């Protein structure tokens, strides 16, 4: 059922909309962000500068942005999804272009008050576009090859650009985020099964070809894989980060070493402790209880989004909510897998917790759209 077919009179209007915002989600997000503030404070050796304070300010801005976006009817966001996607694509090209003419491997555009990474923006606009696409597409055509090929293309074009930056982590997030929306929209299992099978075949052939004349990867690429599979094989080189991360995490124990007492982070054995490896600091200082609590907060965010989506009769609203939740999930799942040594180090931050401006704002904006979908969801004519 498309939005236009709903009884609009049941949708709240004016300032009363604020009452319909999913406040539980807001509280969860604030809690997650607060974990970030605490860890940034700790990582700075007990100081609000240089990380905790700007992060808190950004979160305030993000919160306002989220609520503002939530107030705007969801159909507006559906209508601008295509424009947003095109804009993101253009910005990606701009970054690519300027990168070529000598601005280095710049991934961001300076907006004055913040640096915007077009790839961050793309994560959300791609989700919106795909949600809009399936909102528009006749349900019966969803699994037809041509109509499957179109979203695949929409996913692969920005992915290729991001991969070229190079940003493996974000491009993986784009592919998986897009795939999840396609899956949620009802694309046949067979496609996913086929892709999974092909992927498995590829991995198998990559490994089995090693050492043969027709091996698929260069030797150094194999060595990187080795390092991922066994970081201790190269403890001072590429495996160093992951080894130190695992040590920090593991040494936390049940209850952790205590606030600001993590030796691995305080003595700088941990790399990137305020960005990609911030979860390690949490796990080191607050132990399993701390780390698991954050995981529960994340789970809460996902659950609230999915409940909202399932209760949403509007296809766009439901799909965009699922897609954003999935993107959010991919963020922290990849990041946590990475610091626990379950995935290679690909440079994905911990959402809402890692220090970083554009990722935080883009995510808050995305949750604004989730809120908008929630506020403006069609209600039954009762």
């Amino acid at each position, binding site marked *: *059922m*498309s939005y236009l*077919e709903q009884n609009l009179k049941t949708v709240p209007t004016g300032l009363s909309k604020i009452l319909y915002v999913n406040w539980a989600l807001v509280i969860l997000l604030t809690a997650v962000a607060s974990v970030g503030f605490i860890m940034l404070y700790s990582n700075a050796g007990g100081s609000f500068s240089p990380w905790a304070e700007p992060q808190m300010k950004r979160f305030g801005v993000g919160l306002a942005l989220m609520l503002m976006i939530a107030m705007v009817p969801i159909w507006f966001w559906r209508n601008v999804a295509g424009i947003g996607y095109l804009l993101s694509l253009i910005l990606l090209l701009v970054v690519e272009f300027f990168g070529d003419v000598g601005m280095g491997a710049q991934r961001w555009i300076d907006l004055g008050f913040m640096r915007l990474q077009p790839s961050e923006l793309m994560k959300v606009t791609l989700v919106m576009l795909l949600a809009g696409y399936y909102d*528009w597409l*006749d*349900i*019966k055509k969803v699994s037809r090859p041509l109509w499957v090929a179109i979203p695949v293309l929409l996913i692969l074009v920005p992915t290729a650009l991001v991969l070229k930056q190079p940003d493996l982590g974000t491009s993986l997030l784009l592919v998986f985020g897009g795939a*999840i929306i396609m*899956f*949620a*929209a*009802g694309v046949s299992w067979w496609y996913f099964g086929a892709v999974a099978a092909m992927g498995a075949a590829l991995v198998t052939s990559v490994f089995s070809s090693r050492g043969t004349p027709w091996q698929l990867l260069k030797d150094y690429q194999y060595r990187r894989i080795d390092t991922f599979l066994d970081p201790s094989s190269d403890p001072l080189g590429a495996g160093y980060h992951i080894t*130190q991360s*695992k*040590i*920090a*995490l*593991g*040494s*936390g*124990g*049940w209850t952790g070493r205590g606030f600001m007492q993590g*030796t*691995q982070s*305080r*003595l*700088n*054995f941990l790399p990137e402790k305020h960005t990609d490896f911030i979860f390690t600091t949490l*796990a080191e200082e607050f*132990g*399993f209880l701390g*780390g*698991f609590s954050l*995981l529960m907060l*994340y*789970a809460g965010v*996902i*659950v609230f989004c*999915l409940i909202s*989506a*399932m209760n949403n*009769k509007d*296809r766009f609203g*439901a*799909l965009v909510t*699922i897609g954003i939740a*999935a993107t959010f*999930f991919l963020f922290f*799942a990849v990041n*946590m*897998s990475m610091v*626990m040594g*379950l995935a290679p180090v690909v440079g994905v931050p911990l959402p809402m917790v890692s220090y970083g401006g554009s990722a935080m704002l883009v995510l808050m904006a995305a949750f604004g759209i989730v809120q908008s979908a929630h506020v403006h969801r069609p209600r039954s004519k009762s």
Partner: protein
Amino acid sequence: MRRSPADTAESARKISRRALFLGGTQLAFMGVLGLRMRFMQVEQADEFRLLADENRLKVRLLPPARGLLYDRNGVILAENEQTFRIVIRKEDAADLDIVLEKLEKLIGLTPDEQERVRKTVKSRDTGPSVPVTIADRLTWEAFSTVAANGPALPGVSPEVGLTRFYPYRDDFVHTVGYVRPVTRDKLDQMEVVDPIYRIPDFQIGLTGVETKLEDLLKGRAGTLRVEQNVHGRTIRELDRQEGVAGSNIQLTFDQKVQNFVQARLDGESASAVIMDVRTGDVIAAGSTPAFDPNKFVRGISGADYKALLENIYRPLPSKSVQGAYPPGSTFKMVTALAALEAGVVTPDETVRCTGHVEVGGRRFHCWKRAGHGNVNLIGSLRHSCDVYYYELAQRAGIEKIADMGRKLGLGDDYGLPLPGMSTGLMPDKQWKREKRGADWVIGDSLNAAIGQGFVLTTPMQLAVMTSRLATGRAITPRLVKTIDGVEQPIQDAGPLDINENMLRAVRTGMYEVLNSSRGTAYRSRIVEDGMQMAGKTGTSQTRNVVVNNNNVPWEERDHALFVAFAPYDDPKYAVSVVVEHGGGGSTAAAPIARDLMLFALHGAVPPLASYPQSQRGTIKNRLEALPLRPDDEDASTRSNA
């Protein structure tokens, strides 16, 4: 676009189903993450905690303070001084070149020094956590500059160390010895290496008591656990277990006497030993020329070391225990007692000296070509008649003489804690057969009887011999008085089992050497009441042809020897003096022995009243000219040390 309500409802249901599936998958994955987290943080926590501790905790060995050495009166002979140095550890140094460059700017580290550090750090022998000294003996300013710039110098740590200092410089170099930073070679020679020696620049005794009592002096290393950050900078000390300082050892030396000995021997290639005949305590053991051991501690320059090696007066060995000389006539008491104890001669029996004697077709000369006429025991000692002893040697035989020599302490090193002690040589028939592959001939006995030929003694042995003659007891020398305040046992000196009358006769002869106007050392007598000295001169040949000593090169002149004890009536000290190539014992060695004896007896520069009236003028000048160390020099010269 219109859609059928059925379609939309079906679509919504599908989305819900798939959302549910996705949610389930996501939660399942989160479950995996949670389990993984639990596995790492609960099951493997101890293991990871250990690894984290390995990362941050470093154990350093703390060098203990080396035991101090004192003289018998508590005057400090070897002490520990604070020094400032900076070291670098390979495992903690990020970029050595940058660090060295910075140090060049900060403290003016020269390119040569930088190269040395670079080489040492890169050497395979240097373990990652072994500190390499960059610069030692820094000024406080340079040291604090480095300390203040710590964060910019990863791996570099400023350290306060202790180093040995010998306040009395040359005086004790041959006995106390000195230490040096332990070297790779030294470590390789050790069978079991005490980890303490891995401490950079840890000082190890190289000579003298310092090396012989190393195990007592070195102490036990302490440990320091520190927390370090990833750059190797120490964040804090966790716990410190101080090492145990080495034992403080009091030696039997008397610093003042030793200083006087060194001053008195100065200018000669000589050595002397003063012993307390009652206890065997070695009061002084001098050897000249000497040198400043502090130079070695700090790292002696090649030129200085070469000069020491090439000096013909041989400053390096400790002549009083390492120098073995033919004792010459100082050995005659041994021959006399051997014959007396064997009953082949009586003290009053005379032997006719015609200036020479023919034995085995060889002519053996007395030092006095004209001969001494009829001499008895006392006369033979007083005049140092050689022919008398040639006769005694033939009567007693070498075995008896050698036995008596050993009884009087010759051929022994007494287990003194000094390295390279010579045992001298107390030859007998068996020795000659084994070592020389020849039979003992009568001529050998004759030569041995007057302390020539194969007989070799050290000044220490001569002092022991004199102590035993003076007391009739088996006095053994003692060097260590107390260890950590615990008095070391004085060996029970039992009687020598020599007829007291015979001993008395020999002592009388020795008394006459100095106190009879016809004695060979009459000029070196002590006239002070109750201080009279008894002794024996010795002039040992270093070549066979006797000519006037004044006309031959120094290294071909005779050694001058003198042994003495005093006071004659109640012996307190025994003295032995050897002046290498000094000429006659009576002229070169006896006056020295008298000065040393008088200083030991008085504990200070002796009064002129102790000397014969006629000599007081020259002696006054000589004593005043001695380069004695003022009492307070220790304090006044420390700062520019």
